[in-house]
């Protein structure tokens, strides 16, 4: 998440909000957000409702949840999905920013219909 903080202004400059969803409860989120002063939204999902809705995988053999990233455009459409295959399988900020640039380009499919 340090990576996200470093890139947060770049995401904001491209008209994007960053939302982190995790399985911990609000208390755990509060502790981390207050300690780290993260600028993005933190959503505790202790019942795993949204984590399941979006199909985040739990790999019992690798001891935990695999990271996943989804970009939703202004029209509410899914434009990028990355399901990690291991804990370190996280796309770079540059990759995510390139998707946002494409969404913001004239004539992009993300244009409101």
């Amino acid at each position, binding site marked *: 998440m340090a990576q996200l903080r470093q890139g947060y202004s770049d995401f904001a400059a491209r008209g994007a909000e960053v*939302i982190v969803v995790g399985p911990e409860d609000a208390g755990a989120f509060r502790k981390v957000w207050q300690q780290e002063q993260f600028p993005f939204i933190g959503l505790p999902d202790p019942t795993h409702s*949204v984590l399941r*809705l*979006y199909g985040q995988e739990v790999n019992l053999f690798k001891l935990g949840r695999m990271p996943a990233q989804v970009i939703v*455009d202004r029209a509410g459409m899914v*434009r990028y999905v990355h399901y990690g295959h291991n804990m370190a399988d996280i796309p770079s900020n540059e990759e995510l920013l390139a998707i946002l640039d494409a969404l913001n380009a004239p004539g992009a*499919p993300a244009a409101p219909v």
Partner: protein
Amino acid sequence: MARRVELHTLAPDFTLLDWQGQPVQLSQFRGKQHVVLVFNRGFV
């Protein structure tokens, strides 16, 4: 195999309370901002 979202389909809407207790709904960003959703593996 867990369910996965599909590209170029409407993102499933949801509402959760943020850690400060404020409701956040995905669709509240519609027409305003793109959203980068990050599903974290946990803080530990």
